[in-house]
């Protein structure tokens, strides 16, 4: 009898055993991961559609002639840096240091806002040059459609991330923070960074 209980506990504690917390995380972190997976598939669909349109198109505009690549590189730098600072904010929150966490969160939000500002500037320039969702001066209409949909969706995610981080930072400043809450917001922020890594490589560089 004794050994069968021990056996049962061993099974429940194993990775695939079920048990009380089969994934070894809080429910909120697990839900954040599930959300990130579904959101990643949305972006995968966008990028694959873009790849499809691009490879059936007889021509495609040269990105270096359309985009300001210095600005794009700067935006990438801002997002990667804010991601690194966000990781430090999570570490500070885990170490029960809300003051430091708020400071790091503030820097993360600043990085996100600079990114959004640069993107607004980029969009304004392209729209002034005549780019619309259905037409543009560079030949293939699908080029600007893919551009506005993909960077627009990503920019909306950055905006959402900045909002969530602002709420988390405000709550942390009021002392109402939990390390799990900061970590979940951080997971989302890193995901936004991951999406940009894809967009940067396949939309701007390829």
């Amino acid at each position, binding site marked *: 009898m004794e050994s069968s209980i021990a056996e049962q506990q061993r099974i429940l504690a194993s990775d695939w055993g079920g048990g009380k917390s089969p994934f070894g995380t809080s429910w909120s972190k697990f839900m954040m991961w599930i959300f990130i997976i579904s959101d990643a598939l949305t972006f*995968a669909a966008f990028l694959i559609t873009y790849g499809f349109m691009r490879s059936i198109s007889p021509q495609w505009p040269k990105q270096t002639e359309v985009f300001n690549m210095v600005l794009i590189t700067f935006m990438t730098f801002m997002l990667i840096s804010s*991601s690194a600072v966000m990781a430090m904010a999570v570490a500070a929150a885990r170490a029960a240091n809300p003051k430091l966490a708020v400071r790091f969160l503030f820097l993360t939000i600043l990085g996100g806002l600079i990114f959004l500002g640069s993107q607004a500037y980029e969009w304004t320039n392209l729209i002034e040059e005549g780019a619309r969702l259905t037409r543009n001066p560079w030949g293939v209409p699908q080029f600007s459609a893919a551009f506005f949909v993909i960077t627009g969706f990503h920019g909306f995610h950055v905006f959402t991330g900045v909002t969530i981080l602002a709420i988390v930072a405000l709550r942390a400043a009021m002392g109402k923070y939990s390390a799990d809450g900061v970590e979940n917001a951080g997971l989302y922020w890193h995901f936004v960074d991951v999406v940009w890594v894809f967009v940067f490589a396949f939309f701007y560089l390829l």
Partner: protein
Amino acid sequence: MADEHDQHSITYKTYLMTWFWLLVLTALALGVGYTNINEKLKAFLLVCTTLAKILVIAAIFMHLRYERINLILITFTPLVLAVILFSFTFPETLGNATHLIRVR
């Protein structure tokens, strides 16, 4: 739960080093983007730098290294599903769908 979290208190130095390597990888991707090589080789090299970057971000920034194997595996399902979606759509690009795009 609490002691599990204490295990992965990564130092700030680790994050700084990760940040540095991510910038190196970004510079590499930029270099690949600007060289005049075969489109297919370029796409392959960009896939490599991108995969390296997302693995670094997921493993260290998103703490995936310290999670249980079942959580790690489910986070990589979208990549597998995306590859399946990709292989369903791309045979079409070998000449069947060119009429969909009108160049002005």
